[in-house]
């Protein structure tokens, strides 16, 4: 299996452990990820506030780069996934617009054809019957006893017509992966909610109330950790966690893992190898749960 890997900006900056664990998970599973080093940022839903055309053109360039390699494009960030899908939709639903975009791309020697490659989140290729079978075959250290709560990230769910899921109000992709890894999924209402990250600078109180509500829900549903496919959710839920008042009042805290970390953990990588020691909320408790069930 060979894919073009669209890393996104955050995996190269504030959550480098995501990159580290993605590489580990890919190595353990025998997936060949070709890093798209000249792809620009997806726009993160912020650049379209300035200019949708600019965002779509930069993303068309990214798609053209994957087309040139004849590889499907894999994201490791829910926000990248949603924003690339949105551009793909915008461009392919209006032929005149597509021509306009391609006219700009021409100057750099690229052309976007459309329909040639697929854009998928890492979890999408794992949550297929073949992907789940592969996980079951390759795991070395089943995550028995670990109660994992999925946190999907808005952009892989909404708008539903661009989501890879059949029923984005009731997704099961991450939970299926957890089960294949030997962990026990915890279903809770907030797993499809917003983490509050987009407004952390505009309205910190509201942002952290959102994150707090979700984490309290996960904890009270019995989760040992929250697992997300979005590094922005990770920032909101992990890096900012000590600031969340509603959690502090209850004396709660919960480790937050990136999905590739959970996969790599089951593939036998040590927590340190996959950057779990760089988290703000300590993940050591998870080790003892796993050790107790080993």
């Amino acid at each position, binding site marked *: 299996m060979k894919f073009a890997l669209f890393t996104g900006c955050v995996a190269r900056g504030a959550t*480098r452990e995501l990159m580290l664990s993605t590489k580990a998970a890919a190595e353990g599973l025998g997936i060949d990820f070709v890093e798209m080093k000249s792809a620009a940022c997806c726009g993160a*839903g912020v650049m379209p506030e*300035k*200019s949708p055309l600019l965002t779509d053109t930069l993303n068309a360039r990214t798609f053209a780069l994957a087309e040139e390699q004849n590889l499907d494009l894999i994201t490791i960030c829910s926000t990248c996934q949603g924003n690339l899908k949105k551009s793909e939709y915008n461009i392919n639903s209006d032929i005149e617009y597509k021509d306009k975009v391609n006219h700009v791309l021409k100057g750099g020697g690229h052309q976007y054809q459309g329909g040639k490659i697929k854009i998928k989140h890492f979890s999408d290729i794992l949550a297929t019957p073949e992907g789940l079978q592969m996980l079951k075959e390759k795991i070395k250290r089943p995550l028995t006893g670990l109660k994992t709560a999925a946190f999907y990230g*808005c952009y892989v769910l909404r*708008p539903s017509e661009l989501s890879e899921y059949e029923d984005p109000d009731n997704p099961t992709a991450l939970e299926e992966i957890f089960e294949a890894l030997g962990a026990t999924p915890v279903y809770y209402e907030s797993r499809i909610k917003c983490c509050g990250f987009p407004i952390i600078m505009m309205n*910190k109180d*509201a942002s952290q109330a959102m994150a707090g509500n979700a984490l309290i829900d996960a904890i009270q549903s019995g989760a040992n950790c929250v697992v997300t496919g979005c590094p922005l959710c990770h920032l909101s839920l992990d890096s900012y966690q000590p600031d969340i008042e509603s959690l502090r009042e209850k004396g709660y805290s919960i480790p937050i893992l990136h999905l590739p970390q959970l996969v790599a953990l089951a593939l036998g990588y040590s927590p340190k190898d996959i950057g779990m020691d*760089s988290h*703000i909320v300590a993940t050591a408790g998870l080790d003892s749960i796993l050790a107790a069930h080993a």
Partner: protein
Amino acid sequence: MATFRIKRYNPEKSPDSYYQDFEYDFPEGATLLDCLNEIKWTQDGSLTYRMSCRSAICGSCGMKGNGHALLACQRQAAHLMKDGVVTVEPMGNMTPIKDLVVDFKPFWEKIDQIKPYLKNKEKPPEKERRQTPKQFKVIDDASTCIMCGACYSDCQMLEVDGNFLGPAALAKAQRFVGDSRDTATLERIKELSQPGGMWDCTHCGECVERCPKPVKPFDRIKELMAVGLEQGVHGNVGARHALSFTKSIKKSGCLNEATLPVESIGYFNFKGLFDLLPVGLRMLFKGKIPPLIHKSCEDVKDVKRIFEELGE
């Protein structure tokens, strides 16, 4: 046979709400509203909800089905059944008055707040003020709002901050900001850039899912933001954030996470910057601060060329 698990509430009898199950073997094609009517007429006349047109036009029958806002007359009961049960609750973010009826007061107050009427100081023309089809297209989607409150009910921002204008009022604002006959654009945009306005939207996209019409409030909010940036209303965190973000991509092809927070908060907003300190320090100690020398993506020249060619 289906079970309709309905949230009941009657403050005249008890301050507590409770769920009550009704069994009804509905005919094929019955909407949720058809079922509620049948239950009210044949099983419990006290069951209270709003309805009128039965055709998804009046916007009266908003409620929650299986946890999400919808129009009861627009959705077939069969499509809502889960293991033989349909759960019906009042809409969220508003106070229940009785059973499925909620108090729309805050919803209307916010619609009022955005001044939902044409503002034009120029002398009225002899006949009507006309629009070309192209001009109308800008406000076409927002014009289809039926004020049902579904987006307001499920808005994730309103769940944590009642001060937020909310998707319906912001979509309505776009209907006037985008109106070629309205001359108060700048005044409106300045109002909408205040705390609780358009920049407080958390991008969750929930409103787009719940809206029963083509309004797509989140998309309208994005259009408002674009107008704000275009009109030079930049004196707020949201606008500075969008500008700093875009500038960073132009420079290096990817986001510079070190400059974005500082530029968004504003170099002279000492209180705001001070608030960033704890998280900044925590991340610094864990080696999570982005590299000091920000690395560009390969072939950043082509990215810059695209910016320039598009005049950005």
